[in-house]
């Protein structure tokens, strides 16, 4: 794995990054209340847009819609802003208000019909959009007893995961127009920071320094199958996966790459940043980006030898 470029621009910690579905743009956000849009030009990754003035506090997450047309940003100011990609720029379309305080995570459903947001107010809000680009509150879900850190929609079904400071993961399903909590996964011993669907199975990372793998079994429930520990020495903040690999980043400034079926470690990048790595996101099997408290974003090239 090779560092291709270090992107500077954010003033203060970079909280999150997200690749557009086609991989041509990278969005980043941070404590400077700004969103940067980066694009690969002939001389490397360059800022093509800087979105400012829509949030009054740190921006915690940015996520592209599945179509790549919209970008949503979640902020500690309690609001979510939806941006539309137009030729050459991003335009703020609307602000979703409702959460009582810091919005920590968001996720788009496969068809972009639903946007889920979660907050320190312990609730998950499901927003529903129609062809007129209006957003309705479809549901407000309470179950977690603490701050909800992240949520993640399944890639083909209306299934949603939520990860919380209460150490649990909840699985939500849309059933005859109601969002029902169909299972709660217990096992982590501290805050669950990030969760991902790995096909129909689930991977999660936590402040308890473990990566856990939950497998869907014959009883149609997820069961804890694997716990990977002893790799990171500080809180694991982020996890991402592709067809072949899983990648994690943590407060120990390390990025670790695992084989996604055996969980064998393929590579450990020590000191990938000079401070906590808040997010790591795969673009495809070849590229990856990471965002850190050191104010930098790094673009990494993954060598093919990793996979063999």
């Amino acid at each position: 794995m090779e560092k291709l470029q270090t992107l500077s621009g954010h003033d203060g910690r970079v909280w999150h990054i997200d690749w557009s579905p086609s991989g041509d743009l990278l969005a980043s956000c941070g404590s400077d209340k700004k969103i940067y849009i980066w694009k690969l030009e002939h001389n490397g990754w360059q800022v093509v847009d800087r979105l400012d003035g829509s949030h009054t506090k740190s921006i915690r997450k940015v996520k592209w819609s599945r179509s790549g047309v919209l970008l949503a940003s979640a902020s500690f100011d309690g609001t979510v802003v939806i941006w539309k990609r137009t030729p050459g720029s991003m335009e703020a379309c609307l602000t979703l208000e409702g959460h009582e305080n810091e919005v920590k995570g968001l996720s788009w459903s496969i068809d972009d019909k639903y946007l889920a947001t979660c907050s320190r107010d312990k609730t998950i809000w499901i927003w529903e959009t129609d062809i007129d680009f209006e957003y309705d509150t479809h549901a407000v879900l309470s179950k977690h007893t603490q701050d909800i850190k992240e949520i993640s929609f399944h890639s083909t079904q209306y299934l949603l995961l939520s990860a919380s400071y209460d150490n649990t993961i909840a699985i939500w399903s849309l059933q005859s127009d109601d969002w029902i909590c169909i299972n709660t996964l217990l096992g982590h011993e501290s805050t669950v920071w990030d969760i991902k669907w790995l096909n129909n199975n689930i991977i999660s990372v936590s402040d308890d320094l473990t990566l856990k793998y939950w497998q869907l079994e014959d009883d149609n429930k997820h069961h804890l199958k694997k716990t990977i520990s002893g790799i990171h020495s500080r809180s694991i903040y982020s996890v991402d996966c592709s067809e072949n690999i899983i990648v994690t980043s943590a407060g120990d400034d390390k990025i670790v790459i695992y084989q996604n079926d055996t969980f064998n470690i393929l590579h450990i990048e020590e000191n990938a940043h000079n401070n906590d790595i808040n997010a790591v996101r795969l673009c495809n099997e070849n590229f990856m980006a990471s965002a850190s408290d050191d104010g930098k974003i790094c673009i990494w090239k993954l060598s093919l030898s990793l996979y063999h």
Partner: protein
Amino acid sequence: MEFSGTVKITDLNDFLRPSEKCSVHNSMIKTSSKNTAKVSLSDCLACSGCITSAESVLLETHSLATLQEKLLQNEIITISISQQSLLSISDRFSMSFDDTFNKLSQILKKKGVNQVIDMCHARDIVLECCYQEFMIKYQSGNVPILSSECPGWLCYALKKGDSKLVNLMSTQKTPMLVQKNIRNIIGYHVVVMPCYDKKLESFMEQGVELVLTTTELMEICQGFELEECNEVQNNFYSTTKIKTSSMGYAEYIFTRAVKDIYGEDIEIEPKSTRRRDVYEIEFRDLKFCIASGFQNIQNIIRDLKTKKSNYSYIEIMACPMGCLNGGGQLRTTREKIIELESSTRNYYKTSTLNTELPSIERELKLVQGNNLKW
């Protein structure tokens, strides 16, 4: 004890700390690191920060134990039972509305309660007051009006501190708050309501000493078989009766307004909309809305803000599907509520209704006033 979702959504923190957006001006609450702040409940109902402190006070005062104490002391006790509570019980035991009331009444009297009365008349009066308020505001173009019966919704609206929103709310008192005056109740007055949040509301005004929920009422009745009481009494007293499982503000006002404005008698059929649990009633220029559930409160507020709403009156309830699904009601299902709604509607379609208005001049004077001072 469970408050409705809207109240529950807020941080539960037993340390008495006014929230940032406290509706009472912060300077009024004197806090220092050593002394506990003193805030009376009526100051703080609209505020998220203090609700847990209130909760413990309420648990002590608004409980079954309090009633049992009063019964032991041989105090004169009157229990008023809301329609929504009666409907919940009659649905559970598959009994008629009147049977349910009469049987409950007998059981409670055996327990030592002096008088058991319904709240239909209070509701009639309040509906009429709300109708008069509507006509005045409608004719001066001062609409929409948002209903203010549901304490979960009222709490939320006041807590948001959005004065534009609060100014749109109906200023009429609720049946619970006028019951004592209307029915000349003496002694210790207990009211049975569909939700816990009504306990909060009772701190607003004199007239209710204790609020119990439907489930709490059923706890008192334990040991008695509801089906076994047979004696028939008849002290039922109402003109509007129930056509819906909730309060029916929108329907009552709409029917009366259509009659007054267009001179037509119409049968109301609320139409469903693309939003679940949001219904519309429409006749010519008149358009009303009935919305329930926290997510729809959000949608209604957003529509009002963006001026997309063209309703003249909006009845809002925090519990999905309204009061039959209230936090203090006997558990039921979505399907059963839908079934019940349509069957009560059909029942009143086929029965002859007394459409004469009650003679309420005197009572109107008694109850008119501002509900929103809290």
